Structure formats: structure tokens, C-alpha cells
């Protein structure tokens, strides 16, 4: 019986936004996964930044993505780095390739998943965790796994 992946400590999810990243976090509060897209050349990038590295444009689009993706890489965190958060172990950090925004990747978590089932290439679906301060953080479950 494989252990299930938990969530990282809420204390780490203190979201600070600047004028370039705020639309990402505002969309999250609405339950939408988005990604920075250059309005001139159409390329996607993460995390948000003030210039497109391909064409230096500052014009942006924030398309609502389908919320699905693929695990690009992951690690199972087995030791608490913040003392007092041992009950969050194990949690899984994953780099997710976002459908509809290739090649942009999001650093996130795979939660509620049997640890042994988490592999590179597995399909995942987004959901949002609401933090005590109201911030919404996108996280993923393995596709096809019921909540």
C-alpha cells in the first residue's frame, strides 16, 4: 500500500505579487490556471516577467489554460526542512509542463497521489488550495484519480 502525497507547509505559501505576477495569482483566486503569454510574438513564459525574452515586448495576454499538464520532473520530499512541519511529509514537488502553454513549466505539487504512481510523463489536473490569508495556490492531482 503506497503512501499518499501530502501538501507542503502552508507557511511556505506566503504569496507576494508584483505588478507583473499579480494577474497569475488573481486568476488563481477565480479558479483559473493561466500563463504569461507575449501579446506580440505569442510565446509563453513562466514565471511572469516584465519583458518577453524573445522580442522584448511588454504586452501580455493571460489566457485561461485547460488546467491539465504533464509531469516533467518531481521529487518526493521525505524530510521536513522547516522544524515543526513533520506532519507534511511526504510531499511531492513537481515541475509541470502546462497544456496550452508549451514550453512553459510551473513548479507545483502533486497531492493525494500514491507515491509509487508518480512518474515523469504522467498526466495531471489542476485544483486550487486556498491559504489562510486568502491566497489561492495551484496544485495538481494525477489525472483520473478521484478527490
Amino acid at each position, binding site marked *: 500500500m503506497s503512501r499518499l502525497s501530502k501538501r507542503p507547509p502552508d507557511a511556505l505559501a506566503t504569496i507576494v505579487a508584483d505588478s507583473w505576477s499579480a494577474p497569475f495569482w488573481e486568476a488563481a483566486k477565480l479558479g483559473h490556471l493561466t500563463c504569461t503569454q507575449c501579446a506580440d510574438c505569442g510565446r509563453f513564459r513562466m*514565471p511572469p516577467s516584465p519583458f518577453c525574452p524573445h522580442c522584448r515586448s511588454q504586452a501580455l495576454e493571460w489566457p485561461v489554460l485547460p488546467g491539465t499538464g504533464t509531469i516533467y520532473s518531481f*521529487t*518526493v520530499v*521525505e524530510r521536513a526542512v*522547516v522544524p515543526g512541519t513533520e506532519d507534511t511529509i511526504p510531499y511531492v514537488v513537481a*515541475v509541470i509542463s502546462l497544456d496550452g502553454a508549451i514550453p512553459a513549466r510551473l*513548479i507545483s505539487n502533486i497531492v493525494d497521489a500514491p507515491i509509487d504512481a508518480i512518474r515523469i510523463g504522467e498526466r495531471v489536473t489542476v485544483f486550487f488550495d486556498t491559504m489562510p490569508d486568502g491566497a489561492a495556490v495551484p496544485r495538481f492531482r494525477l489525472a483520473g484519480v478521484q478527490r
Partner: protein
Amino acid sequence: MSDEFGIKDRTAIVGLGSTPYWKRGRSAPKTLQELVCEAIIGAANDAGIEVPDIDGFAYYAADFDTGGLMETLGIREVGFSSMLTGYGGGSAGAIGLASAAIVAGLAKTVVVVCGVQQGDLRYGAMPTTYPSTAESSFYQSAGLVGPGHMFALLAQRHMHLYGTTREHFAEVAISNRTNALTQPGALMKKPLTIDDYFAAPMISSPHCLFDFCLESDGAIAVIVTSAERARDLRRKPVLVHASAQGGAGEWGRSIYWMNMSDDAFASSGHGAVARQLYSRSDAGPSDIDLAQFYDHFTSQVIMQLEDYGFCKKGEGGPFVASGAIRRDGGSIPTNTDGGQLSCGYIWGMSQVREGVEQLRGEAANQVADARFCLVTGGPSDIPVSSVMLRSADA
């Protein structure tokens, strides 16, 4: 590149000073300033140079600065005080920075020094003490906190793409430990077996306890001067043959970004710097006698072996499994003092120290007829760096 504009063999390391290495926190009640000054005085004495004659400082990671060192050590006047950005990535490149200052005529006697004294905080948790920023919110919110988590993502991808295994990581840990056993002052003195490795707790998969470097206290300094002046000093010079710093934009913020190009993701980020270094060096991979790789994680030794061309991309695992990095019979003896995994973790200066001792012919684990030694700075966000050291006999 024309030698006319380069630093090739124009400068040399002429003095080496080091404190002992302590397990993290155990150098107290000595202060960090005291450790750093001990290393500098040691390097000056080794070179036969008077401390007040030091006239330049090159750093890459410093919780101390030139004003305080001048005040403490009675240094008269300094013409160069510069830092290579990026912290541990710049350790080897700081030697090149000192060389550049000397070739440019900005200083004659330049110290490169690093000192580490750790308090209660474990390095893995250090980023949690930084205030959250718009950038850190994109990784810290996922619990991606310590370098151990971050490099694990690269290692996992390397295993997926190339079939690299934990047995390969274990070989790096065991090779380093074997070297540490016969290195005086190395912190780890217990033999490490493959069974020990697999019995160790997983920290952040695929990295277990023995894939992580040590956390230790200590300070190391070297003195760089012109090759011409070096001939008149008391120690056998170790020539600074070539150095490189920087990296490719596709690597960028790397472990804090995770949007590196697909080709670069499962690497050490040293590819561009390796090309720069070799373009300035008479020695290519087959000419290098030994290497001191910045070994914060076993998997990153494997990826540096690939990025520096000792084997093909993706073949680093089987390469180490063949015994290639062993001091006893390997084609590229690696981290011959035990490295940061088993000897001491002084943020890359321990690699410089071992390179100097090897090319002087005075290392505890001496590689016979060592002429060229590659030393690298820490794989991390840009800049990363490296330096090719050359024996004065070569």
C-alpha cells in the same frame, strides 16, 4: 582567443592557507573574521609575502569585506576589491578574477578567500528565512525550498532521460569517501559501502543522505600574483592556465526557475563555461590529469563530467560505474581529497586547495605527474565558473 589578450599562464597561485575543517558550528568560539584572517595569514606565510603587502581581494561569497580585513590585518593600501556574483558558482572563477586584475595592472598581490561558519540554521532551510518575493512565490509555495530539493528535480530528469541509477550516484559518494579516508583533516573517516548507501534515509528523492555534501566550518585563502614574480618566491608556483565564468541564457536562474531549455535541464549548467574554458586552454578533456568538481550533490558530479566532455551527454552514470573517477586507476581521478561530500564543504575553496596541493606534488592522495587540474565552481544559477590550473613543470 589570442594569448595577447588572455590570462593564460601569466599569473600563479603562490600561497595557500587553510584552517582545519570543523563539523558545522564547531569552530566557535572563533569568529568568522578570525577564521578568514587565519587563512590569509597562512597563505601569506606560505608564499613568503608580508601580509601588509597584499593589495587586492577577489571574492565570490563573503560575509566579510575588504575594509574589515584591512583594519584587522594592517593592510596598507588596496587597488582591487571585487566579487564574482552568484555565490558558490563563482568559487573557481574568483581565481580568474584575481588573475584578470593582475594582468590588467590593478594589483600585484591578490587574495582569494572564502570562510564559512554556520550557526544553528541548516543550509537546506536557509531560503525559508528570506522574505518572500514575487519570484520566490513561484517555488517556495510548492515547498521547493532547499538546494537539495532543487537539484533532485534535475537528477530525476537525468535518470528518466538516460537511465542513470542510484547505484551511479552511490559510486560518486563511495569514490569520494574512499579518498577522504586517507586525507588528513577530512571530516568523514568511516568507510562507505553500497549497503550503507542504500540503507541511508531518503531526503528528497532520488537523493539520500549520502548524495548531499557536508555542512562544515573553515576558511581557505590563496594568493595570486604574476607568473614572473612567482618564480622568485619560495613555493613552486601553480599557474592559472585558463578560467571562465558566466553561462548560457537558457540556464539562467536554473534551479529557481525550472524553465531551462529541454537540452539543458538535466545538466550542471556548465556547458557554455566549459566551451569558454577549453577555447582558452591548451588542455582538453583527454589532457587533464585530475578534476576537483564542486560536489554539493553526487548527481551534479556526473553531470559535470558530461558537461566538461569527459564522457558523452547522458553517459555520466556508466562512466563513473566503470571506475573512471577513482584515484586508483581511473582515467580522471576526481575530488581526490574526498570533496565536499566527505572532506569539507568550504563553498568550493576546498576544491581550489586540493588542486594547488596536487600540482605542487604535495597532496596526501597525490596523483602521479599531475600537470593539469580542472577545478569547478558550484552548479547553480548563473554565473557558474571554472579554472584550469597547471603545474609549473608542465
